[in-house]
């Protein structure tokens, strides 16, 4: 039987000035099931709470209605009071008679009668409240970082340093990501390898970090604190435990037809190769597609030359299953395909390159050993033209709508480095806007223009063509000078738009993490929770959440790590008990609820049910309470009413509606 106590707060004069609190307490005291009713100056004060606790004890109350300020203010306070008084904290309802009554209605009669109605609604609701217990689940103290670029490495290092186990899954044969391919980094011009490789080594040596390179995530199951992940470790055809990393195999490999991915295809590598000298792990991999042994069955030179007997042509992909408490997506970026930008002749003219290719050309470890040589004839170019926004800020459907953010700065960097190393080179940059908001960024760009004499031209390139003598003619407009220019260039560098890596979409689906139309992961809140995915236990690091440069990526990687550490440091996860619940007797298993659930909290199971017509097996919805956030979309989508939301059940809301309309 319901025994409800009503507590009306004056809130000093905040409520009492516009609402006749005595009348409210009296009127509500006459309501059915109400056995106690009182008013007090400040219910949230120590004394007010004592009043509630005493009343609970003396009247054996089962439910509490507090008529006070907004539940957003003090619901938690009064729930705590209730629990201290010995009743379930979820047996408390608040009638908001301050923000939504006394403060907005001047007329005391109207405000008082509204306060009574709001009180009645709360009483009506509390009659149907059920004691709820906060759910708990364990936490696997291990994190998974997907992606081994700077974002993933930094996140993993930070988590590992805090004492938790971390696994990194990287699809390439080595960690390092895009940053490993870069030459210098803006705005300080320190060399990328010099700052990245120590971190790579640290990650490999760290006792808490395990690397799965040349591996991909195949399946993710479970929920926050309890993920179960299948990782496919692709066959390298090299036994990692035996290989000494001497590199003899790569030197002897007779196949030289495959483009070297690390050098963006500017030179060739063997079929067995180590991506680059500082690769981690320093273990080669066989590219079976180009390997002569795999194609013809004859060769095996690498095997003959391997002193460690590490080559194993019969190796198979391996599936590793592991449990994790948290998952970090750090899948990084790639640059867009430029096939749709015929006007720049990227594929037609070898001397039109992307910035990433230029990065390799300028890199001392690159295909030209750092000498500026153009790809077509190896000549040192005398005139360079940089084109920005190639596919960025493009709404025509050929590129991406967003600003790729990093291009302005790396173009300034390239221009500056070129002028520094080769002062006799003319460098032109076509730009739409130079976006350099960042610490020392604008100064950096201005230095390129002012000290290094880079010619910045506001305008875009409309066409690149060959003049017939092997020269690239770059025609563009200078819209400040209001003239059309044609520059005879030796080499053109395109700042192609950056996009999330292709693997992000399928990963998002596996993680049930939401993504935007550009395949960037969506954050739980754009301002206040920028490193968390709306899917609990999934965190975001680096470019996969939105365009970022290195310092921002590292900052976000650290932030994601802190969130992971915060999660893993808990032994038990408490969950909001106001979650959806499905009645297996009524559920038809139609899947409507599953389709509207934003968190993937609903699954289906075969249940043995007997609704009075005999025992049978039915497919019914099951809510994973650790994953459910309690939005109630499923409850409204369920035609039979089998799905309901605890704390906001249909019955409770009907009771409130009835009380309000009485």
């Amino acid at each position, binding site marked *: 039987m319901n025994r409800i106590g009503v507590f009306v707060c004056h809130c000093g004069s905040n409520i009492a000035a516009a609402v006749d609190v005595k009348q409210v307490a009296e009127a509500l005291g006459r309501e059915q099931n109400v056995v106690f009713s009182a008013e007090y100056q400040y219910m949230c004060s120590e004394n007010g709470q004592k009043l509630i606790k005493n009343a609970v004890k003396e009247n054996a109350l089962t439910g509490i209605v507090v008529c006070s300020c907004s539940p957003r203010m003090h619901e938690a306070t009064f729930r705590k009071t209730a629990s201290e008084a010995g009743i379930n904290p979820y047996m408390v309802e608040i009638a908001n008679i301050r923000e939504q009554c006394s403060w907005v209605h001047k007329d005391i009669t109207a405000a008082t009668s509204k306060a009574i109605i709001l009180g009645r609604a709360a009483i009506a609701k509390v009659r149907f409240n059920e004691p709820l217990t906060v759910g708990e689940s364990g936490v696997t103290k291990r994190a998974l970082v997907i992606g081994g670029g700077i974002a993933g490495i930094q996140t993993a290092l930070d988590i590992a340093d805090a004492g938790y186990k971390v696994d990194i899954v990287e699809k390439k044969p080595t960690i390092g990501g895009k940053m490993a391919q870069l030459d210098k980094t803006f705005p300080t011009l320190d060399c990328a390898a010099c700052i990245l490789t120590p971190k790579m080594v640290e990650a490999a040596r760290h006792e808490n970090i395990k690397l799965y390179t040349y591996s991909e995530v195949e399946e993710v199951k479970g929920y926050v604190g309890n993920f179960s992940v299948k990782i496919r470790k692709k066959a390298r055809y090299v036994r990692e435990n035996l290989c000494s990393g001497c590199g003899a195999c790569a030197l002897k490999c007779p196949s030289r037809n495959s483009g070297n991915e690390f050098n963006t295809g500017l030179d060739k590598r063997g079929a067995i190769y180590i991506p680059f000298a500082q690769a981690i792990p320093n273990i080669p991999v066989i590219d079976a597609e180009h390997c002569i042994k795999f194609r013809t069955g004859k060769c095996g030179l690498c095997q003959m030359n391997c002193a460690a007997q590490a080559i194993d042509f019969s190796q198979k992909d391996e599936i590793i299953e592991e449990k994790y408490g948290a998952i970090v997506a750090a899948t990084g970026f790639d640059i867009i395909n430029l096939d749709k930008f015929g006007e720049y002749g990227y594929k037609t003219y070898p001397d039109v390159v992307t910035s990433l290719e230029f990065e390799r050309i300028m890199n001392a470890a690159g295909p030209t050993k750092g000498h500026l040589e153009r790809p077509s004839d190896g000549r040192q170019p005398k005139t360079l033209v940089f084109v920005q926004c190639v596919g960025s800020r493009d709404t025509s459907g050929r590129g991406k709508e967003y600003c790729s953010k990093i291009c302005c700065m790396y173009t300034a960097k390239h221009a500056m480095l070129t002028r520094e190393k080769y002062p006799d080179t003319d460098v032109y940059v076509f730009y739409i806007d130079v976006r350099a908001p960042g610490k020392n960024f604008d100064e950096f760009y201005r230095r390129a223009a002012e000290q290094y004499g880079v010619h910045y031209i506001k305008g875009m390139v409309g066409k690149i063509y060959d003049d017939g003598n092997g020269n690239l003619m770059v025609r563009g407009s200078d819209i400040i000078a209001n003239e059309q220019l044609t520059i005879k260039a030796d080499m053109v560098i395109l700042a192609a738009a950056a996009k999330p890596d292709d693997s992000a979409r399928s990963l998002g689906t596996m993680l049930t993490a939401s993504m935007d139309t550009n395949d960037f992961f969506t954050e739980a809140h754009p301002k206040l929770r920028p490193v968390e995915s709306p899917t609990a236990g999934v965190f975001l690091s680096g470019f996969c959440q939105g365009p970022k440069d290195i310092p921002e990526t590292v900052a976000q990687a650290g932030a994601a790590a802190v969130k992971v550490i915060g999660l893993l440091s808990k032994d038990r996860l408490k969950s909001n008990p106001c979650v959806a619940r499905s009645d297996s007797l009524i559920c038809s298993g139609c899947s409507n609820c599953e389709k509207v659930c934003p968190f993937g909290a609903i699954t289906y199971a075969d249940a043995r049910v007997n609704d009075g017509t005999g025992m049978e097996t039915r497919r019914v919805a099951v809510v994973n309470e650790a994953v459910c956030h309690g939005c109630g979309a499923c409850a409204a989508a369920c035609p039979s009413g089998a799905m309901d*939301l605890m704390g906001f059940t249909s019955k409770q809301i009907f009771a409130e509606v009835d009380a309000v309309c009485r």
Partner: protein
Amino acid sequence: MQINEKDKSNRPNENPVPSDENFTPLIVAFCCNWCSYAGADLAGSGRLSYPAEVKIIRVPCSCRVNPTFILRAFQKGADGVILAGCHPGDCHYSTGNYFTRRRMTLLFSMLDYMGIEKERTRVEWISAAEGAKFASTMNEFAEKINSLGKCRRLGDLRCV
């Protein structure tokens, strides 16, 4: 089509009576906890007044609102029902209000199709920062309902 005897008495007045002096409308507002309920609180903090006839029912998300809740309010004598949620794209649960938008568009379309005055139902997107919008929306809606008068077409006659 034949109109049988039973419903002739229920037919709406040919000339709807202009709202009489004593009529005070009853308005039920379903507000999502994260945006619109907070917006209502903000209207309170800013002392932005709106009619006391507006009674707010808190729901976690606008997508919790089942069409039956709205119909129940009308059954029990509400003259107008307004549903307020986060702006599309800002839902606390990321996609809830997109479903609300479809459900309510289609529900209201059906009510209109059945001859229920469409002005009596409404969906508004009110963020936690839009206290002023909350107050002005409620003022405007209450005024509209006032001019429409008592809801006679979708109520339980026993409750009127």
